[in-house]
């Protein structure tokens, strides 16, 4: 697989879901006491990759390097490629720059630094290989919208993606979003004739794991306007799939004068479009021998007509649905909490069988009897007082959990103090914060070094320094 695919992990400046609370860059957010970027790399390692390119920004390169060094020093050759931080530098831009630096030699496995997955890469690769795909996208189940999210309630309208799949091969026929479709989902008739049975899914999210043909990079170079892989490159490739190759640049000779009357058809870039179409055909051209083999083969991806296999399309996009296995992106507070809850399960899946991860660090000091659930993790140097109960929670390093504190369903980062009788439930408490005596927190977000006085009660609130200033 290493020779076939080159792994690229994009850890370049995407904003952290907790940026309001804590300035840690996203790749270094702690999930179950590991930096977030540890998970995709560990997944690659598990799937047989011993080298990977990690794209980082200048400012975070050193930190990330240091954070990863203890885990992968002897196991994986990580090549860090740093780009200076700048606005509007999307995922596609990063790939394009990599390509221009001649770093890329094979087909690509691109993944984002915030992917936590234990899907079998072999299956994804097989889907890619079977159809000699141009692009294979992994889709995950979107988080259920009724999950309780800590912090102040914000009404967020979430736009669902609409993906039409051919049910047998999982070829992506149409990708759009609810906002684009508005009242009606429009489907060209010829597509329905070709793919008369379509599965339309809305609860799927792009998991930011892509297998790409190398020529896609040439296409990116040819189309400098594409900046994001997810929102621009993929929809574009999905649409371009259905072009017929035989089609020469369609001329529309006499109607150019009518632009004022038909603005929606006569785009000014029409001629260049045609030009681009031809260029894409050239870039995406398949090996002639392979075409010949396919032509002579009995196999076809569809039945009921005499059309060529794949209808002669040289661009083919497929979707791998991570319906059963675990796959998620940590890009929202909700998924951050969810990921922390799932950490024990994930670590078991990702680590080699003999690793036997320790959920409670040997350096934890227990002062008396306390209940710690098997689904909780406690970091090094933390003291846990008498009669403390910890359930389904992740507790960082050097924390102090005082007597009779109760912590459930929460994420407590490093150096946090929970005083006697403190209750923390369903919350995220950032580093250095203090939860006062007998204070109760329910579904709250507590910012960096935030002090909560004794006997306070908060429910579904975001507590940061700014609020503090305004309140007192």
């Amino acid at each position, binding site marked *: 697989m290493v020779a076939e695919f080159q792994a690229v992990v994009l850890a370049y400046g995407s904003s952290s879901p907790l940026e309001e609370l804590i300035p840690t860059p996203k790749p270094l957010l702690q999930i179950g006491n590991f930096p977030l970027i540890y998970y995709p790399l560990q997944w690659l390692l598990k799937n047989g990759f011993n080298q990977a390119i990690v794209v980082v920004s200048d400012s975070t390169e050193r930190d990330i390097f240091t954070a990863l060094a203890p885990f992968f020093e002897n196991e994986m050759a990580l090549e860090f490629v740093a780009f200076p931080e700048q606005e509007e530098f999307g995922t596609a831009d990063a790939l394009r720059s990599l390509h221009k630096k001649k770093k890329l030699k094979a087909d690509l496995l691109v993944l984002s630094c915030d992917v936590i997955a234990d899907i079998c890469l072999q299956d994804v690769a097989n889907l890619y290989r079977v159809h000699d795909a141009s692009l294979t996208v992994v889709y995950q189940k*979107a988080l259920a919208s009724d999950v309780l999210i800590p912090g102040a309630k914000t009404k967020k309208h979430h736009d*669902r993606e*609409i993906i*039409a799949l051919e*049910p047998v091969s999982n070829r992506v026929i149409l990708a759009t979003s*609810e906002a684009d*479709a*508005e*009242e*009606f*989902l*429009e*489907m*060209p*008739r*010829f*597509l*329905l*004739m*070709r793919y*008369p*049975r*379509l*599965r*339309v*899914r*809305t*609860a*799927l999210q792009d998991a930011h794991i892509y297998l790409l043909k190398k020529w896609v990079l040439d296409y990116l170079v040819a189309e400098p306007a594409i900046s994001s892989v997810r929102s621009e490159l993929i929809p574009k490739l999905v*649409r*371009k*799939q*259905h*072009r*017929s190759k035989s*089609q*020469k640049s*369609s*001329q*529309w*000779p*006499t*109607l150019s004068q*009518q632009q004022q*009357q*038909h603005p*929606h*058809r006569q785009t000014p870039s029409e001629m260049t*479009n045609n030009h681009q179409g031809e260029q894409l055909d050239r870039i995406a051209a398949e090996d002639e021998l392979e075409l010949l083999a396919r032509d002579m083969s009995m196999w076809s991806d569809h*039945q*009921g*007509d005499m059309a060529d296999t794949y209808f002669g399309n040289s661009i083919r996009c497929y979707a791998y649905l991570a319906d059963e296995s675990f796959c998620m992106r940590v890009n929202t507070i909700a998924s951050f909490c969810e990921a922390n809850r799932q950490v024990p399960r994930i670590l078991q899946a990702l680590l080699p069988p003999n690793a036997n991860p320790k959920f409670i660090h040997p350096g934890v000091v227990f002062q008396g009897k306390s209940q710690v659930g098997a689904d909780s993790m406690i970091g090094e140097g933390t003291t846990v007082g008498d009669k403390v109960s910890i359930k389904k929670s992740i507790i960082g390093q050097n924390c102090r959990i005082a007597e009779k504190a109760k912590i459930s369903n929460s994420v407590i980062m490093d150096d946090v103090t929970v005083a006697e009788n403190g209750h923390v439930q369903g919350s995220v408490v950032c580093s250095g914060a203090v939860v006062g005596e007998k204070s109760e927190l329910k579904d709250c977000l507590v910012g960096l070094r935030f002090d909560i006085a004794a006997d306070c009660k908060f429910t579904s609130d975001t507590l940061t320094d700014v609020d503090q200033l305004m309140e007192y």
Partner: protein
Amino acid sequence: MASQPKKKPGKEGKGEAFKAEDVLQAIIIADSFNERFKPITLQTPRALLPVANCPTIEYTLEFLASVGVQEILIFCRAHAEKIRSYIQSHAKWGGKGRRHRSVTVQVIVSEDCYSMGDALREIDAKNLIRGDFILVQGDLVANVDLQPALDAHRQRRTVERNSVMTVVCRQVASRHPARSLEDQVVLTVEPANQRILHFQKSPSGKKIRFPTEVLDNRDDVEIRCDILDCHISICSPQVPPLFTDNFDYLTRDDFISGILEHEEVQGNTIHCFVLQAGYTARISNLHMYDTVSRDIIGRWVYPFCPDLGFPSGAGDVAYIYKRHHIYQQRDVQLAMGSVLEENVVVGRGCVIGENSVVRNSVIGNGCRIGANCVIDGAYIWDGCTVEAECQIQKCVIAGGCWIGRGSVVASGVILSYGVRVGPDARLPVGTRLVGKADFQSITDEAEDSEREGPVFTTNAAEKTILGGSTEPAWRFSLSNGADSDTESDSPGINFEEASWTWWSLANPITVDEEIPEDDSSADEDDAETEPEDEQDIPSSGKPRRPVVKNVKAFIPIEDRRIFFNEISDSLLRAVDSDHEVGSDNIILEINSSKFAYNIAMDDVNKLIIRSILEIPEIRARQRKRELTSAKEVFGEVFHGLKILLPVLRNYYRSELSQMSALTSIVECAVNYVDLPRHQPYGAHLHESVMKIVKYLYDQDILAEEVILKWHRGASDEQVLSFLPFFLHEIASQASPRRRHVSGDLTDEDMTALARKVDLLKAKLEPFIKWLQEAEEESE
């Protein structure tokens, strides 16, 4: 073998498993409520038309018996008595000692029903339904196993009382031959429980739209157009009352759409069941008649094959089955040198003459085929005689016809019962002839046409005499118009008719021209003979370029002229007022004028567009200002079209009406270009045709398919056949040498016109080319 199906497993056990009230009922709607098969159905009900020498309804009945139905209700309207007596006289279904002992067949007759909805309302009124029942059409040919679908339906009904119907479909490829082009459905289904969320029937346009509201609260739906819907529905007992409550439901499709629309209010749901195996098809038009006949011969409908004791037509003797799908009765006489090539059914007592070749054909009982004939793809029913040296292609020849020596019958010909043609008849493509008996019934019906309802009037049976025949035969054409003077010539492509021309649905050419006749034996004593028939016609008898005789009928009668002026006024007012006159009002005005003057819809469609194209000229005249360039003309036309878009949207919904619009544009352009009265406007209009068509395409008024179809199909004859309205103008102005204004056009004029149409087609060429290319492109 015929009784085989009832011994199927599941049937036996069912008798015990279900109580008395669980008798499985089925309703056969044995009337199509349309005129598809006219003129053959003038005398015989469609349910009794022979398919592979066996009445259609026999297949439906056998199928129902095979799936375990115990009580069958046959609902009929036209020729109900014939169906009733058929059932009673056939030991299999009626009378004592019937072979399907567990099946009772009841015939229900209602003369006042004009739709399937009416039929179900009647059934509701008579309270005939006791439980879940199967609803099918009387033209169903199937061999599928319905048991899983029935089980699924019953299972669902125990949980969900509001599931009123299970639509049974067969999964097929998108271009499966058994899918009738007019019966395409697109379903949106919830995969988990197969509930139908959205139902579209034969959607038109290059884009198919699905409402996104079906995705609300759902994250997984399936769009299916890989299904063949042949109207097998398993209905709950609520269905007939629902029809009664909603008297606007005419068909099953109305019902489904209505239920889905009111789903939130009424809570009723419809599910589907997709079969993976077996054969289902409906003989819903002649194209399907051909397809299904071939499939039966090809044994796709096993066990309903001629050699397996099925068909049990009179005599009940099984056919002998030979290789290459040849079925013949024992007493068939094959003369020396005659060949049954492949896919042939030959009925009892047939005689096939020396050196004759038969392939892909069905020949009924008691037919006599002469020597040296070639019969390919023909359906020849009982008791026909084909004399020697005949060549017969894909056609339907109903019972008792006589085809004289040396006749040539081209594709798509339909001869109704008892027609006699030849010797040396030349029946061109698409001819439909009726005999004396049919002619009587047509004229009777026409006289009777005063009453309400979809009464079909036809005056089109003009008398023609073919070959050396001494018996009269009349030409028959379908038309949906009401005006009996104009309709036979109503220009345009009639899709109703196009479905007759089954040999090429892709190229729907209605050949409306006269049959070239031999002048030798004009039947002078017949009062029906029109004076035009006496004109100079070459006596060669060879097929030649069609001549539009009878031009008189092309000239708009006064009503049409007045109607045209009225709608022109309305439209002009709308354009002048610039949006102030609401489009609803315009539509109302046009519709009331239509009724006032009794104008056929097709004419309305053509006249509206023509009027819009004339408006700029009228306006220019009013303003005393000439439109000097094509650009200016298009600007004006564009202005008018833009204002009237809602009106156009109202009228040009169906493919048929769009075709009318397009042909009307072409007519105007072709005819205006050199009418002196319309200069220089006409020439400029001619220049702008492509832009106009393009604009209408962009606004989704004209569908891509229609344009391409027109382009493919518009042979010169066709354009001439929807020839105008303008003809007399051309005749009087362009050719002053005309003898009389209403005179006929010579071949010369025709050629000139054809050339003009070709010229126009060339003008549209870039657009057509672009369309063809764009078809494949997704952006």
